[in-house]
């Protein structure tokens, strides 16, 4: 090899090295560096968990699934953003105006200690994903699940949950539990229906006649998974601006959601 080629290679290596060094020095570690609303840096990020669905195209987080959309993205992003508007008005939480989608296929989820998942009767995990979600919860992360109804959905939800936390019992939350008293005292809980209530008049879906507020706790009794079964808070947030959707349900959904967030940020 001629000396000029060696020199050329050395210069190229040096340029690459300096470039890499500069990137590391100026790297944004995933926070983004432009001024768009989605890149606003904040304390709290409304984090919606995208998961593999056993009823969608397996192996992808794409939005198209069994009925034309992926299960995790139900009500996305309107429900998220309307909730964030309420959160900004009613609390001192410094939250980003837009939602953040997080997945279980990388460690980025650990930057978001509060996550929200819907239609969890459809979720499924690889062993690595289940392990990551388990570690996330045991380290101090908080998961709120919503929008699944009836006996069959519950069983499907628990199939996934047992992969994550195999031996943790699920308990029914009582009115006196701290999670209903962090910001608002939510004593008279009702079943919060989805938007289908507007045209069916029913508060339930499938055989989920009774609202179930449930939870899974860690070893110290702190709630790490808050479960809204037989309800659809996401729809209540999403359709809160619909004059046909009852304000009572929407208000209750906001109160419960805010209580859950404050709980997740304090326990």
């Amino acid at each position, binding site marked *: 090899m001629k000396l000029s080629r060696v020199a050329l290679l050395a210069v190229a290596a040096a340029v690459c090295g300096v470039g890499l060094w500069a990137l590391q020095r100026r790297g944004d570690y995933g926070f983004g560096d432009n001024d768009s609303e989605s890149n606003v840096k904040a*304390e*709290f990020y409304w984090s919606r968990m995208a998961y593999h669905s056993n009823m969608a195209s397996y192996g992808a987080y794409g939005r198209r699934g069994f009925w034309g959309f992926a299960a995790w993205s139900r009500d996305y992003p309107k429900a998220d953003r309307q909730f964030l508007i309420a959160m900004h008005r009613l*609390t001192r939480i*410094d939250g980003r105006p837009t939602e953040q989608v997080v997945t279980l296929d990388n460690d980025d989820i650990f930057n978001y*200690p509060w996550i929200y998942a819907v239609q969890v009767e459809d979720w499924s995990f690889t062993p690595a994903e289940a392990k990551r979600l388990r570690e996330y919860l*045991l380290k101090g992360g908080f998961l709120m699940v919503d929008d699944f109804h009836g006996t069959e959905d519950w069983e499907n939800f628990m199939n996934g949950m047992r992969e994550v936390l195999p031996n943790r019992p699920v308990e029914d939350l009582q009115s006196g539990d701290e999670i209903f008293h962090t*910001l608002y005292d939510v004593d008279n809980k009702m079943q919060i229906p989805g938007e289908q209530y507007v045209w069916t008049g029913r508060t339930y879906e499938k055989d989920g006649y009774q609202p179930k507020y449930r939870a899974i706790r860690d070893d*110290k009794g702190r709630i790490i998974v808050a479960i809204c079964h037989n309800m659809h808070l996401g729809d209540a947030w999403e359709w809160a601006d619909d004059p046909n959707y009852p304000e009572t349900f929407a208000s209750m959904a906001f109160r419960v959601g805010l209580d859950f967030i404050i709980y*997740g940020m*304090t326990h």
Partner: protein
Amino acid sequence: MFQFLFKYPSPVFTKGRFELLGTWPVWLLLALIAVAAGGLALLVRWRLRNAAPNLRHWRAWAIWGAQSALVALILLLLWQPAMTVAELSSQQNIIAVVVDDSRSMAIADSSGKTREAAALEALEGGVLAGLKKRFQTRVYRFGGGLAQIDNPQGIAPTEPATHIGDSLKKLATDTADLPVGAVLLLSDGAENTAGLGGTGIGLDALQALRNRRLPVHTIGFGKVEPAHDVEVQDVSVEPRATANARVATTISLTEHGYAGQKATLTVRNGDTLIAQREITLAPEGRIQTESLFFPVGAAGAKSLTFGLEPLPGEENLNNNAVTRPILVSDAKRKILYVEGEPRWQYKFIRRAEEDDPTVQLVSMLRTSENKVYRQGISDPNELAEGFPVRPEELFGFAGIIIGSVQADYFTPLEQELLREYVDQRGGGILFLGGDASLSDGGWAGSSLSNLLPTFLPAGNHNFHRDPATVELTPDGVDSPITRLLDDPVKNAERWRKLTYLADYEDPGAPKPGATVLVEMHAEGRRMPFLITQRYGHGRTAIVASGGTWRWQMSEALGDPSHDLFWQQLLRWLVAESPGQVTASMPARLLMDDGQVQISAEVRNTQFQPSADAQVSAHIVGPGGVNTMVDLTPSADTPGLYQADWTAERPGAYLAEVTANSATDVADPLGSDVLTFQREDGVAENFHTAQNRRLLEQLAEETGGRYWKSTDLKNLPRDISYSEAGISVRSTKELWDMPVVFLLLLGLPLVEWLLRRKWGVI
């Protein structure tokens, strides 16, 4: 030889006073010497210039010097020089012979004999007989105390202690009405109270000897340095600790014969090993200081043993370890955490403290503009009205954390209360970085800016939600707050590898006296991350970030770094915050002496000195000791109560000091617990080498002399030069000293030889 040249023994010159017996004034002598020297200088200059113009200057001055010295000597002799010295009158004085019979005198390092045998042999070999020719003698033995004996034959090295100072003081007192002319001390000097750098002889003992002008002549026995030994010199450890804390200790040691070898430091609770660390021994005789962290374990009064594992061939294994009493308390210390907005830092600090049974974290979090969410409260009314505005409410907390809260959230009254909380009450305040913290929260312009350990930067945009990495400073390497791993090198490396912070806030430059324990790197800048300082009676600190929660979420599951750091930091914050009753004593370890003074500072609920309390100590100890002792108020210091007590038996003692209101005995002001320990005979195992420095210093400061045990021939004669007892002053004329004649002959001879050599005759 000295006496051959100078006619008299050396004490005549060292202890006597020089005088001129001639009647002519001294100034005339000096004037004549000056005139003669000046005249000779002129003569030398004039004569030698003509006789030897090439003679170098220094040679001319040498000749002048020899001539001038001769003239000065002759003039001095004309004024009749003499020494006046005090001498003990023959057979009218007593020489006190004091022989050490402590256990260390049984060490056989004096030519194969024990030190005691060598001492007796020296006495019997002529010293005692020589003394008896001129004086009466009294023989004493001493160890822990002093006792007169008929003769030295019955002395055996069995005493468990060596108290030289106390024994000499007692000797001076007991013989106050006797004509004692001097003291002869035969000892290895292994005084038990001799610590690092101290002589071990108390000032009161020295003063008692000086008052009587009693010279102490000392004879040293034993090797000055052992051949093969490792000795623990001192152990520094806090006498109180919180349950399950990691406690730092500093162990000082010396070695002889093992330089560069490996040794193992250990901490044991009874037979249970609770910590160990391998060290490399420092060069011969040098004091080596090593730090060691150990888990103090569950609550209770403990006696921990700190030491070194025995090395092969050690001469003395009894000086490898020492014990220290430690009181481990699981009493909860309350910390008030004020947070201005929901944020992850708050959650994860609370979670870390939930694992610490010694801290109760009471928090108030502003969730919305007009709502405060309280956690950790003892009853529903606690903090119901918001931030405490009365001293008796706020001062009940041992520490305060102020999170992302703007300065003007606190009223001027509350700000003044916070200042008094640190300055007067002695509490600790920790400020956290955040969106509304430090400079961004307007703290730079507040009345509390002087509480902060840094000069806050200008502006209010110093908080950034950008990553920052951290690194220990040299101070941080040594701090128990930042100790995540026992090994200092691995600990520093652990900090470097901690995942990045979620955010940071520029805290500005540290103030003089503040200590930066951790630095952070962000955007190419280096800033303090953890800064501490003392302020008044308390302490303040800054953690310049709200994003340490990533250490919990992004490190491996089970990694203790986040929780350990916060637990250690908050324990530091409250560790020295006093309660309403603070008990203390000068020393927790009583060596061969059970006298102890128990003191208690008592304050009311506003932490003002309480001068009218009823204070008592309930003491329990070995052998069924169970007694109540009342503490009496100090006449000088309001709120201070004291009592003297004696621990008669060796063993561990526990004293609970309780203060009640004088007006209502059912109203307890508070209580505090002390542990202390009496050890008999243990100190004698340490510092067993001959403490020649102590013996020399004792002799020097009393006008005596240190004698080697192999050269005692002149001792009976030299000991007679003393001003104590019955003495007479004698005058020794100096004109006929052989050295004078030698000079009178030698100086002209030297001059003549020099002239001859340099060719100027």
